[in-house]
């Protein structure tokens, strides 16, 4: 065989593999959009579920997911950012800091259902928050901590070492240097990490199972100690627990979830590009 032909075969093979990766993504989107689009309407987005969830909308679930994600980020962002600052700016490389890093990597690898169980044991039972928005948001918050810590560390590392040296050489203290130079420079990366964390939290089901999610609660929550519906869990419920449910409602719910998560991620990407373009060094 000629080398040229060999090369062509190799390229075609690689291209095929790439196609195999893209194909499922495309198919999922196509199927969900095709089946779910007919269900989408203003009423579907703003009405409560009716007739045993076979009719009506998913408004409480949307609101529930919104509250949970908001709570998770309020909890996880400050802790994650401060933890990353400590690890990146204040610790030197030693056994202790390596242990912490290892713990964070492991935290990211824990299956989400285990977080759910952990959240139930700690927040629902030990702290007696009950199955509530608070318990669910805290559980989600712990789950997205690694995402936020890792992306913040990445952002801090991308700030040139020279900026810190210049600042120190001008007699500016370490904390002031972090506050006035390092954090503003790392801001785009931190925000991107936060938004990716939000996207991850919005799509998770398992951590909510035992901590917050209501099977059917056709009203809005009154306090953070209320239970609430959430889109991913709602999708699970209507897909497995309710017989004779119109298919378009399932796909409609799935479509809302996908749009939400992809939308959040897209927003993160655009924001990062915008902020990056603003600052050059």
């Amino acid at each position, binding site marked *: 065989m000629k080398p040229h032909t060999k090369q062509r075969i190799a390229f075609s093979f690689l291209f095929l593999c790439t196609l195999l990766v893209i194909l499922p993504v495309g198919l999922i989107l196509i199927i969900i959009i095709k089946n779910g689009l007919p269900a989408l309407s203003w009423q579907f987005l703003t009405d409560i579920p009716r007739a045993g969830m076979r009719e009506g909308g998913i408004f409480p679930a949307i609101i529930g997911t919104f509250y949970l994600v908001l709570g998770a980020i309020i909890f996880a962002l400050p802790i994650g950012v401060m933890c990353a600052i400590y690890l990146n700016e204040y610790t030197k490389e030693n056994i202790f800091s390596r242990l912490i890093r290892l713990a964070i990597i492991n935290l990211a690898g824990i299956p989400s259902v285990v977080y759910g169980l952990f959240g139930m044991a700690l927040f629902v039972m030990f702290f007696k928050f009950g199955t509530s928005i608070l318990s669910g948001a805290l559980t989600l918050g712990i789950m997205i901590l690694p995402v936020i810590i890792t992306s913040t560390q990445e952002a801090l590392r991308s700030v*040139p070492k020279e*900026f810190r*040296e*210049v600042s120190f*050489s*001008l*007699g500016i203290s370490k904390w*002031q240097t972090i506050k006035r130079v390092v954090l*503003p420079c790392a801001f785009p990366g931190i925000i991107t990490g936060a938004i990716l964390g939000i996207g991850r939290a919005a799509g998770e089901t398992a951590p909510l199972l035992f901590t917050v999610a209501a099977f059917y609660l056709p009203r809005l929550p009154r306090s953070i100690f209320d239970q609430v519906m959430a889109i991913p869990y709602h999708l699970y419920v209507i897909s497995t627990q309710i017989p004779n449910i119109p298919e378009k409602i399932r796909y409609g719910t799935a479509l809302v979830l996908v749009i939400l998560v992809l939308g959040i991620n897209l927003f993160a990407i655009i924001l990062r590009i915008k902020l990056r373009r603003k600052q050059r*060094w």
Partner: protein
Amino acid sequence: MVDNPINIEVKDLNVWFKDIHALKGINLRIYKNEILSIIGPANSGKTSFLRTLNRLNDLTDGFRMTGKVIFDGKDIYSKDIDVNLLRIKIGMVFALPIPLPFSIFDNVAYGLQGRIKNNKEINQRVEKALKSAYLWEEVKDRLKESAYKLSGGQQQRLCIARTLALEPQVILFDEPCSGLDPISTAKIEEAMIRLKNDYTIILVTNNTKQAARVSDRTAFFLSGELIETDITNKIFTASMDKRTEDYITGRFG
């Protein structure tokens, strides 16, 4: 120059980075209002020496030292020294121009903000510093613009102004012209010679001709040792040590 009062006295200084013995038994006096240039091949410890004087080495992993650096009558490595205050008194200009990602004005005001409450005084100090660094005429109408819009030479003069704004006693220059064209270099050399009236200047340079042009005294470093220090003219015409002569005439390094 040697008649001027001593500004910094380095006594038997040894520096290690992890296992590397970077500076070996350095003894050196630096006099007020002189320009002392430090020459020597790469890895001879010039920059490490400079960074010992404003304690910037403290940040480097594995840094250890013995000996004394006396400044203002005190050892700068003794426990009761406020490092931030020391770094205001001993300013530094780095090899490459590194403006912070702020406006021209904010770059110069950066070290003052938080220390001086009065905005009017900050404005005056910024203007004075930019004038002393011979940059004022070029930037006075665009102080709010990003510092990255300036040319390399202008950026380096901005960095000098940033240091001058703090009104230090000593300025450490770490190869300040290494990334600059000859015209920008000439401007910075001119600035240094005028600054000598108010400041003590220590200049690390890879360019022996630059040392000859601007400095009063020259110190020659080789492999972490101070080989000799003397009046610049003497070093360049009648050095005591063969290795100094070899380096200056370009036989090695």
